[in-house]
């Protein structure tokens, strides 16, 4: 047997490779650089790495001429394991931008009085002498930066994966560092560790389904490659039961990641327990990567079996929106409320995902579903990031204040912060002149033109319910009298402030002039096989 070395397109894959290299370097930094200097080195390394990867991604993107009328469709790289087409490259850029904002949040030190939001010594048991010593010495875990870089590399691979195995590997690469990061909160460590453990166990459980789905589909198609699977589906050979079972289990694995019903149980606990910077990054970037992967898997590999999976997704989309919106109503904790809101958003994204139809059915000028979903996830990601960043600055002596009732009177305490948060909430509610409105319009239009009317009707009703609880927060902030001392806003460093500013600006700009981005997506949102 002769072994041929695979041909690797280093130039095309440079964004992933740069991020991975930075991650590995970060591990070496932990070993070689003195503790006092690690923070500076790690932060600058991560920032430089992400910016470099962003530049590289933009260079790769420019090779498919996204601004021309007929862009190139893309490239298959690494022996067809990765597909670098319009959607992938867009996800890359978006994930890297979110990662850049994430690094800024991770690196914030002013809020905790000179240390990051991460545990001083994760191995010290909560409430012990060792923990007290660690915090007295001002220790902090700078490993969070390489961990995040590993997660980012997985996220970059996830939407690009063009076969089931790569998809699985990417899933694990992005998940494992996140499990760890969730458990590293400096305050309320038990809650944080519990969240990490839950996330890990449930994530492992769902990965089991995913791998089993892999196996079943392989049994059906005789290949892991998406285009071979698509060919098998269209030729109708093989056992239908294998295909359906495999599809269902793969869906379970992916829907778990996006937090869709009925696989959302982990979301509120984890979002609440994880350190807020991690929640922000995870909520935004994971959603992007997972929806990129979901779109590719079901549109490219299982596109021919659309009539088999669509009814199931109809029901899941409806259930997700209903559960997210209705359960958010009775939440009393801001982070949990945002978690349920992100569940509802996953439902709206799935609504857009239901716009799937054959290319010939899409009239010129119509929104195509990939375009709609990617636009929505962009608006959602940037808005959510900024919203969690604001959560991290509302504090009292014991750390972040997340009970909703204690946000009463924030509008008087800090009109700027409360005003920004109110604007972001209006964005999430989908009020016109914010990006949320355009995003919702895009996904609803996409689903409606594919005939998913019932889902769209539910989606509109649920948007109304969602608006109710978003506005409720605004009412609390501006029209309620503070209880006791009331909340206070700690002025963050320029890092957190710039994240908030970017999020608010994006929410506004994408609401007022969505045209350029929608056009770009319209031209490039085509998958290759």
């Amino acid at each position, binding site marked *: 047997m002769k072994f041929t070395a695979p041909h690797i397109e280093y130039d095309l894959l440079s964004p992933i490779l740069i991020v991975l290299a930075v991650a590995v370097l970060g591990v070496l930094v932990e070993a070689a650089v003195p503790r006092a200097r690690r923070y500076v080195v790690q932060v600058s390394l991560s920032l430089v790495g992400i910016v470099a990867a962003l530049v590289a991604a933009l260079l790769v993107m420019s090779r498919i001429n996204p601004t021309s009328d007929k862009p190139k469709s893309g490239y298959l790289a690494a022996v067809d394991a990765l597909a670098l087409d319009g959607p992938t490259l867009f996800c890359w850029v978006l994930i890297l931008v979110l990662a850049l904002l994430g690094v800024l949040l991770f690196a914030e030190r002013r809020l905790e009085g000179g240390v990051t939001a991460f545990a001083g010594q994760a191995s010290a048991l909560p409430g012990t002498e060792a923990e007290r010593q660690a915090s007295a010495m001002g220790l902090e875990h700078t490993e969070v930066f390489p961990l995040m870089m590993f997660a980012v590399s997985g996220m970059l691979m996830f939407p690009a994966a063009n076969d089931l195995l790569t998809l699985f590997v990417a899933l694990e690469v992005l998940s494992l560092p996140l499990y760890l990061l969730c458990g590293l909160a400096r305050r309320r460590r038990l809650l944080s560790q519990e969240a990490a*453990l*839950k996330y890990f*166990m*449930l994530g492992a*459980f*769902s990965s089991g*389904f995913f791998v089993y789905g892999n196996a079943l589909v392989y049994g059906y198609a005789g290949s892991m490659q998406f285009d071979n699977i698509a060919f098998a589906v269209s030729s109708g050979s093989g056992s*239908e*039961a294998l295909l*359906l*079972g495999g*599809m*269902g*289990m793969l*869906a*379970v694995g992916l829907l*778990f990641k996006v937090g869709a*019903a*009925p*696989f959302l*149980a*982990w979301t*509120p*606990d984890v979002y609440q327990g994880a350190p807020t910077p991690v929640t922000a990054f995870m909520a935004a970037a994971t959603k992007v990567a997972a929806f990129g992967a979901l779109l590719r898997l079901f549109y490219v590999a299982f596109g021919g079996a659309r009539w*088999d*999976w669509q*009814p*199931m997704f109809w*029901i*899941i989309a409806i259930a997700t929106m209903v*559960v997210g919106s*209705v*359960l*958010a*109503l*009775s*939440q009393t904790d801001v982070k949990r409320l945002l978690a349920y809101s992100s569940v509802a958003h996953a439902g709206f994204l799935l609504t857009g995902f239901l716009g799937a139809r054959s290319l010939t059915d899409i009239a010129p000028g119509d929104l195509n579903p990939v375009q709609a979903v990617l636009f929505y996830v962009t608006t959602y990601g940037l808005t959510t990031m900024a919203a969690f960043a604001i959560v991290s600055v509302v504090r009292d002596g014991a750390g972040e204040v997340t009970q909703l009732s204690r946000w009463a009177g924030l509008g008087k305490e800090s009109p700027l912060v409360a005003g920004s948060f109110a604007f972001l909430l209006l964005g999430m509610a989908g009020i016109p002149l914010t990006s949320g409105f355009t995003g919702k319009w895009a996904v609803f239009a996409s689903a409606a033109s594919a005939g998913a009317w019932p889902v769209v009707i539910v989606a509109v009703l649920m948007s109304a*319910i969602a608006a*109710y609880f978003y506005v409720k927060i605004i009412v609390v902030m501006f029209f309620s009298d503070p209880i006791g001392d009331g909340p206070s806003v700690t002025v963050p460093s320029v890092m957190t402030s710039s994240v908030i500013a970017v999020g608010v600006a994006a929410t506004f700009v994408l609401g007022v002039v969505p045209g350029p981005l929608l056009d770009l997506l319209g031209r490039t949102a085509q998958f290759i096989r």
Partner: protein
Amino acid sequence: MVNLEALHELPPAVGSAPTDGAFSLLWLVIALPALGAAVLLLGGKRTDKWGHLLATAAVIGSFVISLILFFSLTGRDSGDRQVTQHLWNWFTTGSYSVNFDLLYDQLSAVFLLLITGVGSLIHVYSIGYMEHDVRRRRFFGYLNLFVAAMLVLILAADYVGVFLGWEGVGLASYLLIGFWQHKPSAAAAAKKAFVINRVGDIGLSLGTALIFITFGSTSFAVVSAGSHEASSGALTGIGLLLLLAACGKSAQFPLQSWLLDAMEGPTPVSALIHAATMVTAGVYLIVRSNFIFSLTEDARTAVIIIGCITLLMGAVIGCAKDDIKKALAGSTMSQIGYMVLAAGLGPAGYAFAIFHLLTHGFFKANMFLGAGSVMHGMNDDVNMRNYGALRKAMPITFATFGIGYLAILGVPPFAGFWSKDKIIETAFADNFLVGLCALVGAGVTAFYMTRLMLLTYFGEKRWEKDVHPHESPKVMTYPLIALAVLSAFGGLFTLNSWISDWLAPVVGEHGEHELGIPAIVMSLIILVVVALGVAVAVQLVGKREVPKVAPEKVSVFTRAARADLYGDAFNDEVIVKPGVAGIRGLAVFDRSVVDGGVEGLATALSAISGRFRLLQNGFVRSYALALLAGATIVIFALLAVNFG
């Protein structure tokens, strides 16, 4: 007896020669006052010292450019006088695209001169009139805003652009009527003007929408080129909607009631906005849309009827008012009624409508400013019963006002004679009854204007105790003199029927109308009727003593006229009261049904939510079980759906 030949001829299409040379300055005409308004309104107190000078300079600058443009236009061939300046694409949605284009043709050229010219004079006059007002800068800012909006209205080459200007002048009018907002009456008048204008604005926006539906575009060029292919129903609908718009802005029946109250604004505002320019926007709209109205006789008939009703109503109201500005306002209504009537006569009348609009702009601005000058001397008293014998105290005001008086009466050779005569003649050629209305209106006009003159300038002194009338400063009298000259010689525009020929490429040619009798006989008849009106006024007002307090025991007609012919009472009974009742009902409905439903739903959902959140019990084993159950359901559902 509508000219049949004119009907067979298609209305002229709006041309679009590109701008070059001097015409590329066109945008500057709007930009100067717009910039002035921006500097004054945004600049705050820093501009208090020189703001009024800047505003006046901006309008005079626009006037100078308008003159240059006008003479450049006369230098062109008559077929080449419709110039379009493309500024930018305003918005595009699907196949519908609105460009921000300016159209400079014979019609807009005339308007440009009127607005910037009279506007300049009134700005100069206001420097004196508003000298002691603490908010003078703001006043000039609003005036500039008005001029800019009015110029947008008449220069826009698209109905959407017209709408922008239309709303802009509405806003400026609102701000200026209510300028003395500390007076409740002024605030109420501003609100009334705004609300009633809104009704008209609905006409314009619906009309624009119907134009878009019918023609797929709202630009004058496209609509005028395609109007003869549109169905007559659509044209009539558009015509009636545009007429509604015109009624609102030009205070025509049944939307006339705001104009009298609008006199609460400072007098220069009444002169500029509520006499010379803005209120004539409705006439402009009808004449500009000649390519619609020429093809729909039904809509034109409606225009004529509205014009007739208003010209008589305004004249009658003018007879009974003791407030000098309200008497003039009634007269404005009536004169605009003449213009609307002329515009309704179709191609035969368009040019005369515009002509009367011009001359009226001169003599009515003249008289309003004269009234302002009188008020200035009489401690801002507007009641004519406290005037009397002012001709000696204010000789210049009296002389200029007198010229305006002769002009509005239609005494040859003053401006009004040429324009009003033409309208009455054309009206008689069209329909005897319409002509009769116009003729009677002329007689009543003579009556109320003579009454006004007698009460103000002649007779005994009836001044209040501490009033010492004096002539106004030069900054106020010079504009009066300029306007008086224009009132006297404005009729020259019609020499060799210049105005008709000039406007013909825009509004269409028309043959000579056939009048049963020679034109000179017609003129004589009109003069006799006017003289009769003067004589009655002298008999009833001039020869008797004028009581200081308006007599209570008067005929039912006088009482009706004093109450603005019950316009407000009508509105109150027919619109306001049922409206209030309906709104009360809706409020109850909203509170009980809508709010009740929403709150009930919210309570129910919260209860459900509270129940279901218990499922989120925090045990990872339950979560895993839920996950497993979910996965099972998903997979079995897939299998069941496909094998079931």
